[in-house]
Every structure is written in C-alpha cells, then in structure tokens.
C-alpha cells in the first residue's frame, strides 16, 4: 500500500493534475479562439457567397472572369487552407443546387482558384478519408480531368477508397457503364443507392451490354443490372427476368420480382405464383405487390386459396390488398362469413389508411 501511495504522490498525481490543467486550458483557449475567428469566417463566407452568385449569373466571358477572380482572391485570405476549403464548399453547394448548364462555368471558377491542385493534394494524401473527400469533390463538380487520378485507386486495398473511386468513376464517365460487368467486388446497398442517384442525375445512355449483366458471377452486378433494366424501362429481355425469378440467390429473386412489377411483365404471373411457396416473408410481400399490378384470374384464384387455407398472419393483409386491387368487386361476393377477412377488407377500403 505504501509503495502504491509513494508512486501516487511522486508520479501519478502530478501527471493527472498537469493533464487536468492542460485540458481545462485547451477547452477555454479552443473556445476563445473559435469565438475570435468566427466573425472573420462568417465575413469571408458571405463575401465568397456574394461573389460566386454574381459570377454564376454573369454571362461567361473568359478574360473578365479571370480578372475578377484574381481581384477577388486579394480581398479574402485565400492562401489560408480554411479559406480554400470554404470557396470549394461554396462552389460545390451552388453547383448541386443550381439547375441548367452551369457546369463549365463552375469548372472554370474551380480551375482559376487553383482548387484542382488542392483536390489533388487530398487525393494523394495518405489518409483514406482525405482521398475520399478529394474524389467526392471531383464527383460533385463533374470534373472529368480528374479521371486519370481516380483509375489507380480502383484497386486500392482500402475498401472505402475503392468504393468511392468506383462511384466517382461512374459519375465522371456515366456513358461507360459497360465496364461495370467486369467489376469483381460486391456492390453494397449504399453503393447501389449512390449509383442510382448518379444515373438519375446524369441521364446516361443505356449500357450496350446490359443483357449480358445477368450472366455475371458477381451477384451484385446482376442485381444492379436488373435495377438498370427497370430504370431504362428495358423490356427487350423480359424472359431473362422471368428466369431470374428462380435464381438461387434470394436478393436477386427480390430484384427480379420488383422488375416484373415495374416493367409490367404479365407473362411472369405463373412463375411468380409457382415461386411463392419457396420465398421468405419479404419476397412474398413483394410478390403480392407485383401481382396486384400484373395479376389476372390465376392470381385471383391463387390468393383466394391462400386466404382460405392457413396463411401466416403477417402476410394476410397484403394478400387481401392484392386481391382487392386485382378485382375490386371480389370481396362483395366472397369471404362474407369470414370475420377476419372482412375486417381486413374494411381496413384496405378505408381511403385514409
């Protein structure tokens, strides 16, 4: 005990006390300087905002823009890193919030402020998140010159870098989606969402080899291929989608069911009914959803049978929804003595639910 107390007095307590005072000082000084720099930061932000807005709404004239930007650089502390960051963020913000053909103007401003160099510094940094940030900047500005710096990162060992490089590349070269078929890594849901967003924004051309995507060994490429078919309303390959309803992978079957719905593939009705029993709840619910769009007499009989027999409670309501959508008069003559089904019918026919 005495030894412990000895070390406490000699080493631990002084270190802790020192550390404590250091922490308190850091807390107060950090805040003090923040308060001090806040007005400067806000003023610069406001000036940058005004300048950029003026420039964007001024007809583009190269030499005039050059002179104005050079003059503006002198009015703000542009050499400071935080100021560069601020200008870049404002450019990205305006670019993402303005419609119309302003990409070239933004890219010109971006270059004149030497911000591409700043982005390249980020891309060449050793920190993964700075690399990702750099790529995000190129992606946001649609700055195609950055393409060459991204390609080597496609095979980076860090998954986040690889993923961001992949998305940036799609964004910068949206009309070269054909190459995706050779992609070996599993595309995550987050990447899928990002890709679909890029496609929505860029209004890209349909990949010429889209019908080959379903032959890929990469499950995520097949899923993305189905999503693209829906996105482009690609109805030349309906048979393939019907075949995919019986694919071994559950998530591919799920995408295929959704595709049948959106592409109105009526021929898939029988396949969907046959497949129903093998599916889990999520896919079953999606089948109901799809049958409610494309279903006819066969679906009507199939769902009526399901309701008569023992069916899991959690999907019954969806079944009633589906049947009602296929034939809105069906429940006027059927299941009148089934109290449970009648409750569900009331539920689905209530306009406010």
């Amino acid at each position, binding site marked *: *005990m005495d030894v*412990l*107390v000895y070390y*406490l*007095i000699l080493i*631990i*307590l002084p270190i*802790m*006390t020192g*550390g*404590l005072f250091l*922490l*308190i000082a*850091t*807390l*107060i000084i*950090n*805040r*003090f300087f*923040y*308060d001090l720099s806040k007005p400067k930061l806000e003023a610069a932000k406001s000036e940058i905002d005004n300048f950029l807005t003026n420039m964007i709404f001024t007809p583009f004239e190269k030499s005039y823009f050059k002179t104005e930007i050079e003059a503006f650089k002198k009015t703000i502390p542009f050499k400071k890193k935080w100021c560069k960051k601020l200008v870049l963020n404002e450019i990205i913000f305006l670019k*993402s919030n303005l419609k119309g053909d302003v990409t070239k103007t933004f890219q010109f401003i971006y270059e004149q402020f030497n911000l591409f160099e700043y982005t390249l510094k980020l891309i060449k940094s050793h920190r*993964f*998140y700075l690399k*990702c*940030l750099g790529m*995000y900047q190129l992606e946001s500005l649609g700055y195609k010159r950055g393409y060459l710096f991204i390609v080597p990162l496609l095979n980076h060992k860090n998954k*986040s870098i690889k*993923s*961001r490089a992949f998305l940036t590349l799609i964004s910068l070269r949206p009309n070269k989606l054909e190459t995706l078929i050779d992609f070996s890594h599993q595309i*995550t*849901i*987050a990447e*899928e*969402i*990002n890709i*679909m*967003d890029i496609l*929505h924004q860029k209004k890209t051309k349909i990949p010429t080899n889209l019908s080959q995507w379903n032959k890929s060994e990469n499950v995520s490429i097949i899923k993305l291929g189905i999503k693209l078919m829906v996105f482009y309303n690609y109805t030349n390959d309906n048979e393939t989608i019907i075949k995919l309803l019986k694919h071994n992978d559950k998530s591919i079957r799920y995408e295929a069911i959704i595709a049948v719905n959106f592409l109105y593939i009526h021929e898939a009705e029988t396949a969907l009914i046959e497949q129903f029993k093998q599916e889990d*709840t999520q896919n079953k619910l999606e089948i109901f959803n799809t049958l409610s769009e494309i279903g006819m007499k066969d679906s009507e009989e199939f769902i009526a049978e399901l309701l008569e027999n023992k069916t899991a*409670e*959690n999907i019954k*309501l969806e079944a009633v929804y589906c049947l009602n959508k296929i034939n809105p008069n069906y429940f006027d003559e059927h299941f009148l003595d089934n109290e449970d089904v009648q*409750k*569900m019918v*009331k*539920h*689905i026919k*209530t306009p*406010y*639910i």
Partner: protein
Amino acid sequence: MLESILNIYAYFVGIFSLTYIICYCILAILSYYAIKRYLNTKNYIPNNVIIKSNYIPGVSVIAPAFNEGATVVYNVKSLLSLTYPKYEVVLVNDGSSDDTLEKLIQEFELIKVDFYYQEKIKTKGKVRGHYKSTNPLYSKLLVVDKENAKSKADASNAGINSSKHPLFVCTDVDCILKNDTIIKLAKPFIEGKKRVIASGAGIRISNSCEVKDGFLVKIHFPKGWYPRFQELEYVRAFLFGRMAWSQINGLLLVSGGLGMFDKEIAVAAGGYWHKSLGEDMDLIIRMRKYMYDNKLSFSIQYIPESLCWTEVPSTKEVLIRQRVRWARGLIQTLYLHKNIFLNPKYGKTAFLIFPYFFLFEFLIPILELVGIIVLILSFFVLDLDYHNFLYLSSTVYLFYLIITFISILLDEIIYKNYANTKEIISLILMAIIEPFCYHPVNVYASLKGYYHFFRQKEQSWGNMQRQGFNTTPKQN
C-alpha cells in the same frame, strides 16, 4: 479481526478501482476511434441522395403520449416535419385522462378508421381504436388510442403493432428531434455490412432552449443546477460510454428517448416488456439474445451526434423519482436476463458486457454506501491513515475530472454546442462540484431503486413534471 476484514476490504476496493480505471481508459480509446470512424465516413451517402432515393427502407416514428394535452399538437407537428421520404408518425394515446386525444382529433381533423390491428406483440391495455386524418397534409399521421396499462412499454408495443414500415423509431412525444434524425439513424441500416438491428444517437437537454410550436429555435445551456449536472452526465454517457461500446458492438442500451430498431427482430424478440422499468435496455438485451439464439450476425450502432432534445428533471424530487425508476429498471433487467451471465452461447454479451454492467453500473452505488460505512467505522474504531485516504480519493477525483473534460472537449471540438466561453467555464465548474453535490443524490436514488425492487413496490409510467419551454414571441 475487524482490522483484518477491513484490510481485505481495502484490497478489494483497490483492485476494483484499478479495474474500473483501466476499463474507463480502454473505453476512452475505443470511443475516440468510434467517433473518428464516424466523422471520416459520415458523408459516404450524402443526405440529399437518401432524400431522393427510392431504395431506402420506410420508417415508423412511434411516440407514446400520456396526459400531454398541453403540448401534444406542437409535438406532433414537429414529428411530422422530419425529413425522410418514406415515414409515418404513430402517436399512441396511452389512456390519457386529459384532453390529449380531443386536441389531436380537432387539430389534425382525425376520424376513427376500421384499422385491421394485429397483435404481433401482446399488449395489456386494450386498443380502443385508430384515427387517421381526413386532411391529406397529415396523411403521415396515425393515432392509436389505447387503455392505460401503467406502462410506457405497453404503449410502445401497441405502436409497433400498428406501424407499417420495416424500421421504427421509438421516441417520447415531448422529445424534439433534429430535422434529419431519421436519415442519420437509418444510415447504419443502409450502410451496414452486418445486419443492423438498432441504432441510437445522442440526447441533449432542452430545459432552457427556445422552442416555437414544437420546433427548436435556439439551443441554450440549461439554467438550473440539476439540468446542468445532467447535461454533464449526458455528454459523458453518450460521447464516452455509448460510442465506445458501439465500436466493439457491445451496446446494451439504446435510449428510450431516441432509437431506431429493426421491426422484424424487435417483434421476434417479443417487443418491449410491459412490466419493465428499463424497457429500452430490456429490449436490446432480448434482441441480442434472439440474434445469438438464431446464430445471426448483427450490429448495434451509435451516432456521436445530438439528434434529440428532451426535458430533464429540474428539481431534486423529480430527479430522484426518475433515477429510482432507472436503478430499479437496471436491477430488474439484469435479474431477468441472469441466464446470459458467463453463458458461452452469448459471446461477449455474457463475458464482457453483462459483467461490466453488473460490476460497474449495478454494484457501484452499493460499494459507495459500504465505503462510507467503513469510513465512519474506521473513524471511530480504527486509526485511519488520513493521508493515504486523501491521496487515493484525489486520484479517483482527478481521474473523474479528466474523463469528464475529455468528453466536453470532444463535444466542443466536433459540434460546438455551447454558445460562448462563459458556458464552457460554467460547465467546468459544474464538473468540479458534481461529485459532492450531485453524485450523492444519484447514489441515494439508485439504492432506493434497488430497495424498491426487492420490496416489489408497485411501478408506474413515471410521470415527469414538465416546466415547458422558453417560447419565442409569435410574429404577426
């Protein structure tokens, strides 16, 4: 004899304290990495991409309300204004004896509908009906009217049963959520490589904030003593403890005030237990158990951002009442799930998280009481070495201060939640006196909670007396 017992006790306390300090140091490192990881990857899917996407899961926001007539309309409006493309608000009127339901009916033009209600989770209080608005503006709102069963958990279960989306957020109706709360809580579910079954985020104190019509206008540092102490507690708990546990997928608690859950797993786990006083912790434990039992890999994640502002007790009496309930909830939950302890089937929950909660959450107030008794005994019976006692106590005190200041610093560097240097200094001063003014109250409440548990005293919803908010003047 007495002396040797006290010696053994002294060694026990020494080892215990050392373990506690080491645990906290490890938690600090873990927390740092968790926050860093979050900040480095938080822009992976930008919010605007989520808002526009058709491929995101739907979310039901469930808010039980009991006698909230004074503020319920504003609170619901606030919930209805959240940003997310696919969500509904399920407000559960838990048998309020005031005009909560009437106000809702009147303001939101509600009518009773033939809702097909499936009791996927059994509830004690009978569901009397469902209400939907005839005004398309409020089409996202569903009001569930049920009998009171003296349990918030029961009301939440009725909400879950009535919800239609695969994810649900559980919150208190008086909580003010940040506009992008659902987006941020849903992100881990979208980005996660493992199946994410729950996510949570930081909660802050709204006592002195300016609120207009249920919307947070300006954040202010709490004015009262007790809310200020709780501010410290919340910053420490969320940025320090929860983030650290999140880093090793060891979260045992996602706050009742704000949490998002995978409905399928929550229902399979049996939902909230209506008799529980720590229903949030109980649900997470049962969800974890379910995943282990079915050999499914999972993850529970925390976000180091304050997304929810809630009113906390501003008087000692109300605070004690709340903490008594929390302490009773803790012991009740640990007792109920005692079969997890050191059971190889439950992996780190059995060998790391549960022992931690037992030793460092449950046992601490008891040890503190024993410590005081020993101290008094030593004063009268033995020759206590006051110097050593002082050095040891100072070490523990300094350690506590360092941990608290690191939490405040992290919060300050990342979010700048406080208005000026004065508020920071005020928080520092509060931290210095907290162990002497506030902590004893907490220990007392915890011990009282344990006592109530053993005495099996009747439990209730926990009626929190609200002060209301500073409202900004209405503009004409």
